[in-house]
Every structure is written in structure tokens, then in C-alpha cells.
């Protein structure tokens, strides 16, 4: 099957996991040695990431491989399985973490909270646990590694644990992660259908009644949604991402959120068997609400990492929309359309892993160069940090979904999927789903707006503060990481057909049909997911034509207009004094969106009076769901605990009497 019969892909993946573990432990040995940890361990780990991606890509087209590890409790070994779906997500993990680890080698500095060796251990535990989550083939292994993932990432988030705000963010994250984990555990409990056998193979074999299957679906949506950040469980994302160091944010947003998507796909398409149509509608509605919410709030943010966190929420929403669409098609046995929607979702997972990691790393470099996270104090950095600026530009284009980037391909595929909903047999769905499509288009457009704001305010214009002129560009390792992810974004955008062919085994396994057979087979240039007659897209052609038009325009302007570049003061509207403060700010740029979507926000605005000597303008935008959902839950909990508090009398004798009476009552009951 593969060229190295001695080492199958699953063994290779496990070797990488063990090696990561070893690097983590080595980090403990070199607890305070920044040079060793940064220059040796992290690059080494990046090489392992590449090896992981290679093994995963090798396993993608092959048959599923299984292994049993006798670790953990007696008689309860870890079942592992590497099939096409796991392999694809492992490839995402490998490709994204390769860039992030190299960057991290240059990023972590002295004196920022946790010592480097410990950070190295937590980081590699996090990587290893994510790989094991993707390999797990029974509920026990899955939950154990899932929890390791949550805990290690918690410690990474609270790296700067001396700041109270960061500890609070970490706690919120841990809390939501555990509420989600309970739902996942219950979901597995439903799936095993009272057989007592928690292997995924057994769950696949069970035929659940529609009621219990729906329970399992809803639990999975809730549990994995808590990790992925779907509404209303998204609250931890905008808190935890700004709190964490940038490589950690990149890893969490780029890869960890994808493990939650992996869980959803695994449960809904693999373990549950055939879906029911209304599941798809639920996922579609929740996904669209999440995406819209994320992008609208991203537009109102003034902290660059918070902005990216909300943008992650939006992208997760789009991915869930794709999953919902795939479920609807799968419920009506429309195999190739289900495959199209699923491919769009998975493709977007891959894209988001790369471009969001890239953007987070870019903000990390900016943060280190300027010590500033607030958009209002940045600006004009393109001249001082060209490497970071140009690589971030690639990520921004991808995130905005502009052709020929990879982001465009997946969003285009998703909309293609929507165009075929006219063939659905259910008339209500035929009417409803195009509305969702319109919502998706709105989200895509607003995402473009957000990204213009992000890039424009940070890198373009003039520096808003004096000290920004001293900003230095990223170091060598950081550049390498940024370049790797940029290359990924560009190549995935230019060669979508190759990706589609690689995804084929997954859709064949999950919905019974592949895309390669129906449309574009044979022509590696032209992407035509359903048939060339309906819609097709050729990114390379697009790139060439765009480049040609730009070149022609450039030459014509140079030739016939003035032919020279002149640096001079801009036209000043007759107002002689101009400062960098007079540029459009992040608040100003987001103002139209804040106005249009005002009912979404809880805003507090402080406007100065005309006679104010030292005028200050301040606006805070808060999440309305925090007040509507979370504060109410908190109030209800406190009311309930006051009732329970009546039991508290403060006397040991009374407490003992409680247990004594309970014991006697129970004994009495067993006798009866």
C-alpha cells in the first residue's frame, strides 16, 4: 500500500506524538534556557509537524488503519483509528502547526509569565493531545485526550498569569470547555445505546431510534459547539484569544477549533449514520447566526486580537452552515450535493487554519514590535515592518474571501451548494434555504469590510503614535513561520482541484459520493464542482488575467500620464495643519456598521460637550448575549444556592444528623 511497509502511517503519527512528548519533557530539563528552547526545540517540533502532515497525506487515500494501545485503565485500552477524515484533520494540524512552531521559536521572550521550558511542555502536550483526539476510536480515549487538550490550552492561555484579567479569561475558557465536555460525554452515552461498549465501531453499528438520534445530535452540537464557539457558547473566544500569547491564539483558533468541527463531522456523518432533515436546518440556522454575529462584532472591535477572535467565530459559523447544508442533502439522499457542501466545509477548515494562524502570528509580531494591541494607536506599520505587512496581506485577502486566494474557493463552493437547493423535495426548505444563502453572502461581504479595517488601520496610513517609527520587523524564525503559512494560503488558492481530489476519500466514506467523479476529473486547472456547464473557476487563469491587467494599467499610466513618482503633501482641503491623528480611526471606520446593526450591540457612548476643555470620546461595545443568557444563569444559580444555603447551619452535629437521617431513611427504604 505505501512505500514503507515497515512503518505504517498510524505508527508514524504515533511516533510524532511520542517525539512531541519527549520535546515537552526536554523543555522541563531546560526550564530557563530561552536559547535552547526557542532555537532548537521549537524548530525541531516544526519538523515533526511536517512529518505528521506527510504521514497524514500518505494515509488520506488509503484504507483505515487501526491500532490498540494498552495504556490507561486495565481492560480499557485506547483504540486508535486513522481513516480519511482523521488523516485530513491531522494534515491540517501538521501544516498549520509547522508554521506556528517555527514562529513560536522566535516569539517567546524572557519575562513573560511562565518560564520557557514549562511553556514548551504545555505547548507540546497541547499538540500531542490534539493529534490523539483525531486518532481516538473509542469514547474513553477521546474524552481523555480531549480533556488533556482543554487543560494544556488553559495553561497556555494563562501564560501571563500575573494579570487578573487573563486569569479570568482562562477560567471562563475552562468553564465553557467543561460544560461542553459533559455534553460530549452524554452524547457518547446515548450513542452506545445501552450496550456498554464505548468503541466507535460499536456506535457505528447501533441503529438509534429517531428520538435518541436527535438527542445525540443536539448534545454533539452543544458539546462541540462549546469548543468551536457557536452561539451562544462563543463568549470565551473573544476573552481567551487576546489573553493568550499569539502562537497559542493561532494554534487554538487555527487548529483546536477544527478538532471541534472534526467531532461534529465524526458524530453526525459517521457514528449517527443517516441524518434527519431538520438537523441540517438547525445547524444551518445556528451556523448562520454565529457567522453573522461574529462578523458584526468583529466590525466593532478596536483590539486587533479580539477582532480576529470574532472573525474566527464568523468562520466557524460558515463551516457549520456548510455542515448543515450537507446534512440536509444527505437526509434526502442527494449524495453528490452533500459531498459538495461537505467539501466546502472541510476546505474552509483547512483554509481557516492557515489564514487565521497567519493573521494571529502577524498580530503577535506587531504586538512585540509596538507593545500595543489597540488599533487606535497603530498605523503606518507597512513601512517599518514590510515582511509582516506583506504576509499579513496575503492572510487578509484569504480571510476576506477574494480570488485567487484559498478563502474564495471554499466560500464559492459553499454558495455553489446553495444554488442547488431548488432540487430539494421539501417545498419549505426550497423557500427557506435561499434566505440562508443571502445571509451567507452578507457575511462574506462584511468579512471583507472587517479585513479592510484590520489591515488598513494597522499597516496603512501614517503612524498614530511617535514610538511606532521605532518598530522593528519580525526576526528570522518568525519570518519563516509567516512565509510558510502564506505559501500555504496561496498554493491552496491556486490548486483547488488537487485539494478536491484529496478530499474525495472522505466524502466517499461519509456520504457515499465523491466530487472528483462528477465534475472536474482530468482537468487540473479548471474547478467545476458539479459540471463545467453550470459553473467553473480557474484560479490560475484568473491570476494571470488580473496580473496582466494590472501590468498593462501600470505601463499605460507610466507611459501616458506623468511617468514619475512624486512625494508631496496631500491636498489639505485648505486646512494647513494635518496630524496622524486626523486619519480615519478604527472606531470611525466601523461607525457605519455600528449604526446599521445597532440593535445587535449593547453600546455605551460618552460624547463630550462642545465646551469641554479636554474632550474625550469613548464607546464600549458589549456582547448582549452575556447579559441575556449568562447573567441570568448566574442569577438563577445564586437564587438556587441561597435555598440550598438554608441547609447550612454551621454546626457539625446538624450536618452529621443530616447524613444519619439519610442513612436511616435509605436503610428503611431498602427494607421495604
Amino acid at each position, binding site marked *: 500500500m505505501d512505500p514503507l511497509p515497515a512503518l505504517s502511517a498510524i505508527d508514524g503519527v504515533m511516533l510524532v506524538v511520542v517525539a512531541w512528548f519527549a520535546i515537552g519533557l526536554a523543555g522541563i530539563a531546560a526550564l530557563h534556557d530561552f536559547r535552547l528552547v526557542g532555537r532548537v526545540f521549537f524548530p525541531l517540533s516544526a519538523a515533526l509537524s511536517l512529518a505528521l502532515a506527510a504521514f497524514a497525506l500518505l494515509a488520506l487515500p488509503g484504507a483505515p488503519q487501526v491500532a490498540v494501545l494498552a495504556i490507561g485503565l486495565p481492560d480499557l485500552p485506547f483504540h486508535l483509528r486513522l481513516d480519511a477524515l482523521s488523516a485530513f484533520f491531522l494534515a491540517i494540524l501538521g501544516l498549520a502547526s509547522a508554521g506556528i512552531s517555527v514562529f513560536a521559536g522566535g516569539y517567546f521572550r524572557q519575562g513573560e509569565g511562565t518560564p520557557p521550558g514549562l511553556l514548551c511542555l504545555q505547548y507540546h502536550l497541547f499538540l500531542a493531545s490534539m493529534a490523539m483526539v483525531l486518532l481516538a476510536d473509542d469514547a474513553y480515549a477521546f474524552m481523555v485526550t480531549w480533556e488533556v487538550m482543554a487543560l494544556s490550552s488553559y495553561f497556555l492561555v494563562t501564560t501571563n498569569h500575573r494579570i487578573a484579567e487573563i486569569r479570568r479569561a482562562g477560567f471562563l475558557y475552562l468553564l465553557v470547555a467543561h460544560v461542553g465536555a459533559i455534553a460530549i460525554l452524554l452524547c457518547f452515552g446515548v450513542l452506545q445505546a445501552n450496550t456498554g461498549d464505548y468503541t466507535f465501531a460499536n456506535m457505528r453499528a447501533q441503529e438509534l431510534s429517531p428520538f435518541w438520534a436527535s438527542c445525540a445530535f443536539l448534545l454533539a452540537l452543544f458539546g462541540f459547539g462549546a469548543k468551536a464557539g457557536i452561539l451562544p457558547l462563543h463568549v470565551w473566544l473573544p476573552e481567551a484569544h487576546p489573553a493568550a500569547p499569539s502562537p497559542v491564539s493561532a494554534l487554538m483558533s487555527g487548529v483546536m477549533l477544527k478538532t471541534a468541527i472534526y467531532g461534529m463531522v465524526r458524530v453526525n456523518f459517521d457514528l449517527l449514520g443517516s441524518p434527519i432533515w431538520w438537523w441540517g436546518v438547525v445547524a444551518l440556522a445556528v451556523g448562520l447566526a454565529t457567522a453573522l454575529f461574529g462578523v458584526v462584532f468583529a466590525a466593532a472591535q478596536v483590539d486587533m486580537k479580539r477582532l480576529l477572535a470574532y472573525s474566527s467565530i464568523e468562520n466557524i459559523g460558515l463551516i457549520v452552515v456548510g455542515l448543515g447544508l450537507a446534512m440536509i442533502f444527505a437526509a434526502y439522499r442527494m449524495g453528490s450535493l452533500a459531498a459538495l457542501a461537505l467539501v466546502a466545509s472541510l476546505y474552509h477548515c483547512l483554509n481557516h487554519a492557515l489564514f487565521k494562524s497567519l493573521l494571529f502570528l502577524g498580530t503577535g509580531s506587531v504586538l512585540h514590535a509596538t507593545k500595543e494591541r489597540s488599533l487606535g494607536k497603530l498605523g503606518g506599520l507597512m513601512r517599518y515592518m514590510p515582511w509582516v505587512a506583506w504576509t499579513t496581506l496575503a492572510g487578509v485577502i484569504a480571510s476576506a474571501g477574494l480570488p485567487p486566494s484559498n478563502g474564495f474557493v471554499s466560500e464559492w463552493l459553499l454558495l455553489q451548494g446553495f444554488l442547488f437547493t431548488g432540487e430539494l423535495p421539501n417545498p419549505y426548505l426550497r423557500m427557506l434555504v435561499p434566505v440562508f444563502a443571502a445571509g451567507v453572502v452578507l457575511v462574506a461581504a462584511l468579512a471583507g469590510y472587517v479585513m479592510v479595517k484590520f489591515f488598513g488601520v494597522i499597516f496603512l496610513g501614517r503612524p498614530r503614535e511617535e514610538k511606532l517609527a521605532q518598530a522593528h520587523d519580525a526576526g528570522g524564525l518568525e519570518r519563516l513561520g509567516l512565509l510558510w503559512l502564506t505559501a500555504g494560503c496561496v498554493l491552496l488558492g491556486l490548486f483547488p482541484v488537487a485539494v478536491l481530489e484529496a478530499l474525495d476519500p472522505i466524502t466517499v466514506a461519509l456520504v457515499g459520493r465523491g466530487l472528483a467523479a462528477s465534475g472536474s476529473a482530468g482537468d487540473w486547472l479548471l474547478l467545476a464542482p458539479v459540471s463545467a456547464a453550470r459553473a467553473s473557476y480557474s484560479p490560475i487563469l484568473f491570476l494571470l488575467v488580473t496580473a496582466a491587467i494590472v501590468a498593462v494599467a501600470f505601463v499605460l499610466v507610466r507611459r501616458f500620464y506623468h511617468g514619475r513618482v512624486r512625494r508631496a503633501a496631500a491636498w489639505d482641503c485648505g486646512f494647513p495643519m494635518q496630524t496622524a491623528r486626523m486619519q480615519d480611526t478604527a472606531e470611525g471606520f466601523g461607525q457605519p456598521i455600528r449604526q446599521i446593526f445597532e440593535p445587535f450591540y449593547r453600546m455605551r457612548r460618552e460624547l463630550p460637550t462642545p465646551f469641554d476643555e479636554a474632550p474625550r470620546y469613548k464607546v464600549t461595545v458589549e456582547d448582549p448575549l452575556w447579559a441575556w443568557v449568562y447573567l441570568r444563569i448566574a442569577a438563577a444559580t445564586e437564587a438556587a444556592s441561597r435555598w440550598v444555603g438554608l441547609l447550612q447551619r454551621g454546626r457539625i452535629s446538624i450536618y*452529621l444528623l443530616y*447524613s444519619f437521617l439519610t442513612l436511616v431513611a435509605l436503610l428503611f427504604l431498602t427494607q421495604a
Partner: protein
Amino acid sequence: MTSFTSQVINLFAAVLLLIAFAMLSQRRIVTLINLFALQGLALVGSTVTVAWATGQHHLYWSAGITFVLKVLALPWILHRLIRRLNVKWDIETLINIPTMMLVGIVLVVFAFNLALPIAEFSDSIARGTLGIALACVLMAFLMMITRSKAVPQVIGFLAMENGLFFAATSATYGMPMVVELGIALDVLVGMIILGVFMFQIREQFDSLDIHHLEKLKED
């Protein structure tokens, strides 16, 4: 012979119950500790008898552990503790002693009633004693509730474990060795923790009276 050994076991059980009543009515802490040691000795005696009658060798081991732990080690620790803490007297109980004895009798009746259907199923030679074991547990619990000082409460806790152990030997010839070792360790560690705790209580309040702990309640 069987009837003879079961008579012996019944005798030990009766002694256990008697000591339980004695502990319930005893005010002096030193005597309480001695009674506790005596109860441990009765327990060892019954365990050895069961072991000899049934040929269950692991019961000798658990009898040995019980002897070392409950007859020698724990009373010694407790004696040291009260010498260090300088408490000899348990001034008063929360309910007066005659009432407590009456409640104890009710508990014994209840325990016997409860154990009757279970004993029917058991084929152990000591099946009649399950009710006594249960009564010992409940009465030790009662003692914990009604004492207002920390040391007698700890003794009540230990006595409760005695009752449980007796229930295990009499109903099913003892628990698996692992469980037994675990419980023995638990009791020892619990004792040490409670000892430290008592010192802390006294440091904080200059007294071992647990009324002071009421201040810890959140209003």
C-alpha cells in the same frame, strides 16, 4: 463444634454491642479511648474465631492489621493527643445520657429488623450478628452527633469503622484484601489529619469545643 464457634462469635458480638452502649454513655475521654481499644480487641477475637472456623487465611491477616492499628496504634495516638491537648473531660453531651440510651435501643431494634431478611440469604456461620454490626455503626454515628467536643467525635468515627468491619467479617467473611488495606490506611490517615485539625482548632479558638466552628458559617 460449629455451634460452639457460632456461640463464641455471638459472645464477641454481644461484647461489641455492650461496649457501643458504654461508649454512648461515657463522659470521660480517657475511658472512651480505653473502651475503643477494648472494642478493637473484641473485633480481633471474633475475626480470629471466624478465620479458625472457616479456614480463611486472609482473615488472620486482617485480624493482625486490626490488632496493630486499632488496639495499639490508634489508642496510643489518641492518648498522646489528649495529653498534648490537655483535655480529660467531656463536659456535657447535647442530649442527656438516658435519652441517648433509649434512642440507642430504638436503633438496635431497627437494625435487627433490617438485618433479618439479609441474614436469611447468608450462609455464613456468623449470620445472626449482622444486626449487631449494623447497630454498632448506627450507635457510633449517634455518638458523633451528640458529642460537642472534637476528640469524642473522632472516636465515634473510628468506632463506626469498627462496626463496618464487623459487618464485613460476619456477613461475607471479610472484604478483599486490597479493600481492607485501603480502609486501614484511610483510617490511619484520617486520624492524622483530624489530629492536625484539632490542634488548629485549638490554636484558633483556645478550645476544642466545636461550637466555635459556627463562626465559620457564611451569613
